[in-house]
């Protein structure tokens, strides 16, 4: 089988057997804010239903071994609503880069253990590499693949480090009051336990209370931040980045970290002029607006559940920034 023009769209489960469904992608680049948006648009055409292809995971592994993807040049972990989309847009402004933002097929592999009893870590790592290679095929001669994960994937940072040991990583985060205000304005699906299994967030179904949805969200975010902090402390190639440093950090301490050079900066500066999620709108810092929307109750919830880990993240980031520059590969 030849998958050169094809892109994994999802993993479908036939009982305990995972099947990769591929969609004809040809030379299209992933330029939407999210992988999902590109796929959604693709699936408007009936062709992409009648003519999706299937393969086993092992067929994907075999094919990608013969057809490696672009080098994995970075993994972006984040807390959600903290500028990760802006960062992806900056990276995607360079034609040499492939940027996959929260691709569902990676999530499918990361959570495969929930569907499949007896899945070994070794097999899962092999599938993660193959999936990244399949998504990150150099369809237009690109050189580097960047993966922005779903926010809860930082809890699998060790697995992803094992799969992509050569890839520099960051954990991006933001003042938690602003993150929760954003989640309140437009809640992400994971804030509702029926949409994402609470296990993925280190939570239980019983932790959710319809009267206290901010508490569930805050505790889940705290778990994500703890995992981000652990990742940074156990791995010198995982940088902590605060939203407040964006977009400038991309031209400073992240430039070399992500294997980029001065010549790449101008195109990224142009991209940063655009609001990441609403094309055509300029990117604007909205911390003041978000802070002013926070109620007393919300501040209390944040103070109890999130502020302590945020403070530790900030302390660790300051330490990192004082330390001599991490040498990137």
């Amino acid at each position, binding site marked *: *089988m*030849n998958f050169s023009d094809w892109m994994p769209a*999802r993993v479908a489960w036939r009982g305990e057997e995972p099947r990769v469904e591929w969609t*004809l992608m040809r030379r299209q680049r992933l330029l939407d804010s999210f992988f999902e948006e590109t796929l959604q648009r693709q699936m408007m055409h*009936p062709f992409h*239903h*009648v*003519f999706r292809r299937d393969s086993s995971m092992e067929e994907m592994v075999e094919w990608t071994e013969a057809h490696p993807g672009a080098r994995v040049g970075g993994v972006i972990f984040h807390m959600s609503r903290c500028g990760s989309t802006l960062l992806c847009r900056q990276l995607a402004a360079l034609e040499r880069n492939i940027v996959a933002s929260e691709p*569902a097929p990676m999530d499918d592999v990361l*959570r495969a253990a929930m569907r499949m009893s007896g899945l070994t870590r070794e097999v899962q790592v092999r599938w993660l590499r193959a999936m990244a290679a399949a998504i990150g095929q150099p369809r237009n001669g690109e050189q580097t693949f960047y993966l922005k994960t779903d926010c809860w994937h930082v809890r699998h940072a060790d697995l992803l480090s094992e799969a992509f040991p050569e890839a520099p990583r960051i954990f991006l985060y933001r003042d938690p009051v602003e993150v929760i205000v954003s989640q309140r304005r437009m809640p992400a699906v994971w804030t509702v336990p029926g949409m994402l299994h609470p296990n993925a967030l280190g939570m239980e179904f019983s932790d959710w209370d319809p009267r206290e949805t901010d508490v569930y969200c805050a505790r889940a975010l705290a778990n994500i931040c703890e995992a981000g902090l652990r990742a940074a402390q156990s791995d010198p190639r995982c940088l902590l980045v605060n939203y407040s440093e964006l977009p400038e950090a991309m031209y400073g301490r992240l430039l070399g970290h992500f294997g980029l050079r001065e010549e790449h900066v101008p195109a990224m500066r142009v991209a940063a002029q655009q609001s990441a999620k609403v094309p055509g709108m300029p990117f604007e810092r909205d911390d003041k607006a978000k802070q002013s929307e926070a109620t007393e109750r919300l501040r209390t919830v944040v103070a109890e559940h999130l502020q302590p880990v945020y403070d530790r993240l900030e302390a660790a980031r300051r330490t990192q920034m004082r330390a001599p520059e991490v040498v990137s590969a």
Partner: protein
Amino acid sequence: MPPVAIPWTKLPFVFDPVGLQEDLQSIPSQAWVPHFNPQDYSGEWSSVALRSRSGRADDITAQGAVEDFHDTPLAAQCPHLWAAVEAFELPLKSVRLLRLHAGSRVREHCDRDLRLDAGELRIHIPVATNKDVEFIVANRRLELGEGEAWYIDFSQPHRIDNRGDTDRTHLIIDGTLNDWAIALLQRALSEVVTESFEPERMASLRRFREQVFNDEGLQTELLKITDREKFLDAVVGAGRERGFAFELSEVESEFNERRRGWVERSVGA
């Protein structure tokens, strides 16, 4: 509740088709009424009731609670059919004969309310059929033989095409799930082997799809057509030009299944 979702199973009963057909022939032709949902079928699809809400043989609606249903005069007039009904020790709702006339078809659809987990059980007993009836559930062809009894989960996509030259009539028993029925299903799963087959024209579509996967020119041609109906017709046409036997119903089924898979991809994640 049964331990697993059951897509279908033959049940450990065999009834003598001769007796069943004798009863069938005794029913006057004017007793049959056309089936509701005319948009779901083409050709002729008719029914009579042995048990119905009004107790009349021409009342063929199946919805309602157990206590709403009453035997019709046909129950007593058809002793072989009724003996088959009574072999099932469950609270009965409607009992009907459904006849799909020669050359008629029921388009693919799902009956979402007919689910074991909703406590509903529908049993099919083929009374008269022919080898060219295509009974396809979840894209597997089931061969339902005269006098056999089947449980099928009709919340799955299913379609029926009577390509033969005789009518196909099934006795259809609706009831609610009780302990007896659960034990019956469990016994069927452990004792009965139920075969299913890849429908021939689906296999033909599968081979055609493989061809498209490797034919950039054809991909480009098909990608130009964005209207769904025109696209599905174009797929049938492209297949026919290349000697493939699949028809619109196969392409529709493939489209529906894949689209459903996509739309429901995150459910239960």
